[in-house]
């Protein structure tokens, strides 16, 4: 399935993502990592650690609604993946980000911006893993 090349929208979205990461560091002194925020939300150490994550997640989930209010459309979500593979992928992502201590937002954006060697290694590793997996699924198995 082809998707349209959207350099301006993607750049604009990226700028907002970066801005949110900077604001979270300026206010709470925290890394904007979706993995850490979610993990701390489902298993919080204390109620104060829970409440800021709950507020942040509520804001994140409201993002598509604001997008709808501005543009009149929901953000495009096309899923070229079967339900069992979606569930399998989710399970694998959850295990991987827990052991790898971060995902695209934590390592890929915040860690890279801090020039953290750990995050640079993690980002290069998961990007290579994703590219190899897509190649195998689409061009080796899928043919």
């Amino acid at each position, binding site marked *: 399935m082809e998707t349209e090349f959207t350099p301006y929208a993607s750049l604009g979205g990226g700028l907002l*993502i970066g801005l949110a*990461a900077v604001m979270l560091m300026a206010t709470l002194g925290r890394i904007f990592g979706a993995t850490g925020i979610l993990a701390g939300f489902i298993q919080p150490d204390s109620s104060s650690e829970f409440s800021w994550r709950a507020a942040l997640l509520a804001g994140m989930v409201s993002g598509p609604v604001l997008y709808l209010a501005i543009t009149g459309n929901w953000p495009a979500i096309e899923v070229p993946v079967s339900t069992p593979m979606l569930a399998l992928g989710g399970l*694998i992502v959850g295990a991987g980000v827990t052991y790898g201590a971060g995902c695209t937002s934590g390592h890929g954006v915040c860690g890279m911006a801090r020039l953290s060697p750990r995050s640079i290694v993690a980002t290069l590793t998961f990007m290579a893993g994703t590219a190899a997996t897509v190649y195998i699924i689409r061009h080796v198995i899928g043919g």
Partner: protein
Amino acid sequence: MTKHVLIYLIGLTFGLGISISGMANPAKVINFFDFAGTWDPSLAFVMGGAVTVAFIGYRLVFRRAAPIWGKGFSLPGTRQIDARLIGGSLVFGIGWGIAGFCPGGALPALGTGRSEVFIFVVALVAGILLAKALQRVSARKKPKAAQA
């Protein structure tokens, strides 16, 4: 209360950014990595934009001794590049390639109410809890193994 409203707005900024960028769209994510097929380089612009803003913004923020609400900056203390980091990241990459959703893309996408997003996020939470349980078990086993 003001604090939580502001944190909500920070989350909203992120969620809007994800919605505009295409990071919540598995077809676009998978195409970004499909160099040999229907390649769509858009997501390089997401990463480029986000990292550039964070790179500059963090430098301004770190000129202060502490964040607005807190004693200090909570930055990851460990600097070790080990098998756990590389193995975990590789596993994450495989899962991302299979499903096309990453945590930062999928969490805001819950707001669309799409069932595919819920399926992914439920599995994501299960994966996190499973891995945390395994980490606790292996942390408990280690001292015993050292004694034996």
